[in-house]
């Protein structure tokens, strides 16, 4: 299994907090459904707000590491 835990460092809760709550909500739902196609579509939307965050989120998707993705989104939602 490919570890992507190292990529989370750059995804700060502050950056994620800048994303619309509705977008985060859709990403969480897509992650819960293990739907990589939908997640990639949504990370394209993230790119409009922050290109680096989008790139890092895509790494989770390519590794099918939905749990790490959910953890990151959760930390952003708490901010």
């Amino acid at each position, binding site marked *: 299994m490919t570890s992507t835990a190292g990529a989370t460092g750059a995804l700060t809760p502050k950056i994620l907090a800048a994303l619309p709550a509705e977008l985060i909500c859709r990403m969480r739902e897509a992650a819960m459904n293990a739907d990589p196609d939908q997640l990639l579509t949504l990370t394209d939307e993230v790119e409009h707000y922050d290109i680096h965050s989008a790139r890092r989120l895509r790494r989770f998707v*390519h590794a099918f590491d939905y749990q790490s993705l959910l953890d990151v989104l959760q930390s952003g939602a708490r901010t």
Partner: protein
Amino acid sequence: MENSTVHQPVPSIMVVDDTPANLRLLTGMLKERGYKVRPVSSGKFALQTAKHDPPDLILLDIIMPEMNGYEVCECLKADEQLSGIPVIFISALNETMDKVKAFKVGGVDYVTKPFQFEEVQARVATHLELRRQKRLVQESNEQLRKLEELRDNLVHMVVHDMRTPLTAIYGFLRTLETLKGESLSDQGREFVQTALASTEDLVEMVSSLLDVSKMEAEEMKLNLTQCELLTISREALAKVEPLKGDRELMLSGTDEPVTVMADAELIARVFQNLLGNALKFTPDAGQVTVSIESSADAARVLVQDTGPGIPPEYRERIFEKFGQVENPANKQRYSTGIGLTFCKLAVEAHDGQVGVNSEEGRGSTFWFTLPRRESVP
């Protein structure tokens, strides 16, 4: 062939493998075949996402960190909501014992790696179709169950409402009979007696139907007392005497009293039902014989007839509600099909058993047992 197109939802397949390259390969191939694919890289998350939205089928690797495929499958099968999802194991393990274990934990199939995609596709398609058929059968069963419930409620309602006017008819006919029909002609009196006998049959049908409903709902309270079965059988024989025509009605076996703890009224009606049934199916000049056997543990009552017998395939069905057997001699169906159900439920309410032995062309013997016990259970 019908020309209409029925829209079927795209089947959703979850692929669980800790190697992203394997996930990409299988996901790509399955998507090309039109499936919705959900690739997952850990057993733990597979359970989480399956609970969130159950897939139609799971392709499951075995060797994975944290939680292996066998453990994942066991958890799926232990979850009522997920247990019906077919799991196909896909693994590099190729020993027979690995495959046996996969089936033991609930897998429906096993594919060894390296795999040919055509094989995976064929197995996936087969198990999806099996699941679809299983769901259809379950849906049909559920619909049948609902229809049966509707029928029972309707019958109960109609029969319940029939009871009051029927009691009035019965009462007035009885009054006419006890007045000896003084103002009636001989033919008029005969009519009254025939009407009375038919009304009695109807009252019995109504009572049986209502009692069956009560016994099915376990709402029937038994009035248990010490009952003597020979006496009850003699009374029942006397009651069906007018129906016997040219047939012979006999009581054989022990003359010793056989006492059991039972609801005398219910057991008397069981006797009457079995005797009435035997007479209906026994041709003229045939015989209907009641015998009672007694042992330390139970009393056994047998009602033997010389009718046409019952084909083996009907021997259980006749005890089901509305399960009737056609008389092969005249292609007639007798009664409401509730009498034997009543007998079965009434005997079982006493912790007894009921059954039939039959030989086609020679006759049938309906029997029931009642446990011998000293006091109310």
